[in-house]
C-alpha cells in the first residue's frame, strides 16, 4: 500500500471581541500589570460574551477553516473538538459543532488532553487519514475557560483566555504534512492542574460550589517545573523521530502558556527566539486553542510558506504533552 501523508488543508481561528487587560484585572484582584508581565508575559486576554459558549467560538473558527480549505461541511467525515470547557458534559461539543456546520456525514467526539488537546487531536486525525479511514477531518481546539475561572484567585485568573482555532486535515503531497508525532502523559501529576468537582468523584453540590471546586485549580510552581522540563524534551523527540536537527526547524510553535516557559524551552532546545512564535502577550493561555490560533497568526504574518518545517509543542493538564513535526503543505 502506498503511504499517505496527512496535513492541514485549511485553518481558521476566532477570538471573542472583549479584551481584558492587566489594568482591568488590577481593579478586580490584588495584582498589577508589572507583576503579570514579568512572570507570564501576558498583557491581555479575550473573554467570550455571556451568550457565547465553546461551540459558538468553535463554529466561527471552523467556518473559516472550511472556507480556507475550500471544503463544504457535508464533506467532513469526522469532527474532533479538543476542549476542557465543553458546552455540556454531553452531548459533546463536537456533536454540537457537527450540527452547526452541517457535517451530516461526520462522526464527532470531544478529546480531553488539556492544553495538549489540539496536538493530540491532530495526531488522531493523522492516523485516520493515513489509514484510509477518512478523507477530511475537522480538528478544533476551543475553550471558554473564563467560565471555570475563579475571578478572585489572582494566581490563576490572570493566566487564561478564551478562543478557538480549527484545522481541516486531509491528504497532502508526499513528503509534506505531519512527519512525526510525540505524545505522552504522566497521570501522577494530575492533581497539579484540575477542575476537582463536577464529575463522578465529586458531583456538583452546594458544598462543591461553596468550596470553589468547579474552578480551575493549579499548583503553579509544579506545573511550571513540569512544563519547563517537558516542552523541550517533547519537541526534541518529535524532531528526532522526523530525522530533523535544530538548524532545520524554521518555526517552533509552542503552547502559549507563559513566556518564561517558552524562553526556557527554546534555550534548552538551542533554538533562537526569532524562530519561536509568541502571541501569549495578547491572548494569555487559551489551552487547547492556543496552538491552532498561533498557527493561524504565524501564517498571517507570512511565516508559513509551503515547505517550511514547523514544530508544534504542547503540554497541559493530565499531565500530558504532545509535539508534531510538520512540513507546511499549503
Amino acid at each position: 500500500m502506498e503511504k499517505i501523508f496527512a496535513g492541514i488543508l485549511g485553518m481558521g481561528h476566532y477570538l471573542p471581541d472583549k479584551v481584558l487587560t492587566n489594568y482591568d484585572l488590577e481593579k478586580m484582584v490584588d495584582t498589577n500589570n508589572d507583576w503579570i508581565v514579568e512572570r507570564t508575559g501576558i498583557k491581555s486576554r479575550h473573554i467570550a460574551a455571556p451568550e457565547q459558549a465553546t461551540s459558538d467560538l468553535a463554529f466561527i473558527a471552523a467556518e473559516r477553516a472550511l472556507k480556507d480549505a475550500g471544503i463544504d461541511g457535508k464533506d467532513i467525515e469526522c469532527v474532533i473538538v479538543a476542549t476542557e470547557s465543553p458546552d455540556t458534559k454531553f452531548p459533546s461539543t463536537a456533536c454540537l459543532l457537527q450540527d452547526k456546520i452541517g457535517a451530516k456525514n461526520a462522526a464527532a467526539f470531544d478529546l480531553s488532553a488539556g492544553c495538549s488537546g489540539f496536538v493530540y487531536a491532530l495526531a488522531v486525525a493523522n492516523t485516520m487519514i493515513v489509514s484510509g479511514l477518512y478523507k477530511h477531518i475537522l480538528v478544533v481546539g476551543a475553550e471558554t475557560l473564563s467560565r471555570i475561572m475563579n475571578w478572585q484567585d489572582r494566581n490563576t485568573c490572570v493566566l487564561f483566555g478564551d478562543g478557538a482555532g480549527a484545522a481541516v486535515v486531509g491528504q497532502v503531497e508526499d513528503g509534506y504534512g505531519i512527519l512525526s508525532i510525540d505524545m505522552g502523559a504522566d497521570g501522577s501529576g494530575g492533581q497539579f492542574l484540575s477542575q476537582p468537582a463536577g464529575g463522578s468523584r465529586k458531583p456538583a453540590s452546594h458544598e462543591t460550589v461553596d468550596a470553589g471546586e468547579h474552578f480551575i485549580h493549579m499548583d503553579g510552581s509544579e506545573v511550571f517545573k513540569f512544563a519547563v522540563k517537558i516542552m523541550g524534551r517533547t519537541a526534541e523527540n518529535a524532531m528526532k523521530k522526523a530525522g530533523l536537527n535544530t538548524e532545520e526547524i524554521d518555526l517552533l510553535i509552542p503552547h502559549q502558556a507563559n513566556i518564561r516557559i517558552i524562553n526556557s524551552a527554546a534555550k534548552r532546545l538551542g533554538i533562537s527566539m526569532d524562530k519561536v512564535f509568541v502571541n501569549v502577550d495578547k491572548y494569555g493561555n487559551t489551552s487547547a486553542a492556543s496552538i491552532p490560533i498561533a498557527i493561524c497568526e504565524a501564517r498571517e504574518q507570512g511565516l508559513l510558506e509551503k515547505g517550511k518545517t514547523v514544530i508544534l509543542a504542547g503540554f497541559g493538564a493530565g499531565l500530558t504533552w504532545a509535539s508534531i513535526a510538520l512540513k507546511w503543505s499549503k
Partner: protein
Amino acid sequence: MTTFEKVRDITVEQLSVDADEVKMESTFIDDLGADSLDIVELIMAFEEEFNVEIPDEVAEKIRTVKDAVELLDK
C-alpha cells in the same frame, strides 16, 4: 571546579548577573534579583548539573548561595 564555582556559573547563566556579584552570602531573591520562577529554574539546573533530586521542602529552604553550596556538597 569547586561546588561554589559551579553554583556561581549556573547562577550567572540563569539570572543573567555578573560573576563577581555572586558571593557566598548573596541571597538569590534580594541580592541577585531572582523571582519564584527563576528559583524553580535554578533548582532544576542544579539538579541537572549535580545529578541529584532536590525535594521541594529542601528547595524551599535555599535562600543564599551558601545554602545551595552546602546542600550540593552533601
